[in-house]
């Protein structure tokens, strides 16, 4: 089954984690959706780097956080917060490519 991320996630957001990092949170609508996406490994450093057009080495960490049914991706900020080439000081509007992210899952997720 092909899914687009907003079908399965209730929160997709980006924000600074300090002035030098940008962090993305994806919180899933259900534990089943979270498990399915986590188990399929569709959100990897390589996939995220390709989605944003950045080097995989600048994707610092991908963490699966079970208590919140969430996957968290942290990257090196392409511009340090507030530096001259800045376009988003808080980093809160960098989530758009994730809204368009689509991927295949082996099975259908029951509606939630």
């Amino acid at each position, binding site marked *: 089954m092909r899914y687009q991320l907003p079908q399965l996630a209730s929160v997709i957001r980006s924000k600074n984690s300090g002035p030098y990092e940008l962090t993305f949170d994806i919180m899933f609508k259900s534990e089943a959706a979270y498990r399915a996406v986590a188990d399929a490994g569709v959100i990897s450093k390589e996939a995220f780097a390709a989605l944003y057009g950045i080097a995989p080495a600048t994707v610092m960490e991908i963490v699966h*956080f079970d208590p919140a049914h969430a996957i968290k991706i*942290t990257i090196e900020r392409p511009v340090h917060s507030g*530096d001259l080439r800045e376009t988003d000081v808080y980093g809160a509007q960098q989530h758009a*490519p994730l809204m368009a992210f689509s991927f295949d899952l082996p099975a259908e997720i029951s509606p939630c």
Partner: protein
Amino acid sequence: MRELKILSPTAILGYGFPMASWEEGIRRKPDVIAVDAGSTDPGPYYLGAGLSFTDRTAVKRDLAIMIPAALALGIPVIIGTAGGSGAAPHLQWNREIIEEIAREMNLKFTLAVIPSDISKKTISTALKAGKISPLHPAPALTEADINDAVHIVAQMGTEPITKALDGGAQVILTGRTYDPAVFAAIAVREGYDRGLAVHLGKILECAAIAATPGGGSDCMFGYIGNDYFRVEPLNPIRKCTTLSVAAHTLYEKTNPYILPGPGGTLDLTKTVFTQETERTVHVKGSRFIPSAGYTIKLEGVKKVGCRTVSFATTADPVMIKQIDEITPAVKARVRDNFTEMDDYFLDFKLYGRPDKLGTMGIFNAEEAQPQAAHSQAAELAIIIDAVAPTQETANTLCSFARSTLLHYGYAGRISTAGNLAFPFSPSDVKMGDVFAFSLYHLMEVDDPCEAFPIEYVKLEG
């Protein structure tokens, strides 16, 4: 062990709170009222300029409710990261607000003020002694960074606050402070588990943001016991759920399981969130792992120039199609016209491009978004951004770039009366000093209090 009770009125001092939530908090007889005022989110300007990103009237409103209520209950008020950035001018700004409240309301109390400014000499000595390390991906520190810095502060932990409580302070105003410390200090002082106290502080520092629906301008109440803590919002329209509280741990952090701070790391790998009542979440298992040496985080900024900007848009499809050729041509025209100016930054910030969404306008999303890359915006926002050593030079560059872009004769131009729509007259805005973060490093100290001297002030109404 009895439960210790902590009232967090609002996510940032000055963001406000509803009186009904506040009164419910006071009715529950808290042991401390604490509030965090700090953030690096608004960028380097506020630390550099010595200004608060919150409004004076709004900060005074919150404190004029908090301080007299706390004095009446005989409990302390602890305010972290005065003025948002916590450097000397921010501390002074907030101190004057407190002194004004004491005079106007005839309040008598002992105020402790704890500055967090670190001298360049101290940092330079620590750098030479190998006691400074960068926080990846921030670059390594150089002597030039230290010399060029405008304000440098360090984040204090709970220890200086605990010391001020021991010294009899009734209101404590701190410089730059690790956000959870103002909430955790009293619990740590009374012997509660440090991991639980710091984790509770992490939730309380954003007040009702960790509830659902979340809100930055509403109260949260925390209880800490022997081997657990509980959190509950005070507004009946909100509740804490295991999901809302756990999810909050993700916010603005790199790894939600491992949260480094002054003196050690908060480890949430064994944390269990349980729904206690419909509105209350019970948490246990959070652990504090002390580090080998005690480190404090330095934050510093340097001045990079002065800025003038101009806001405009274009709706012309012929121009939008060529925008990547037009803006460099305008930059070249500016360079050619003012050959004597070489030390400046001129940029056109473009908003609305489908091929640059979520890329900070820099990296290439074409591979991932081929459709977006080949579609064109119906309208583009263009911000002309000129940064130069003086305001006059920035004004000149912005003005000249604006007039050049307005009348630039690009290929195939049909709309010949002007290329830009300006929302404002005047079109150009002087933004003043521009700063950049230059220090974001850990410094090892022998004593958690050595960098944070306490001044006690007796306010006599």
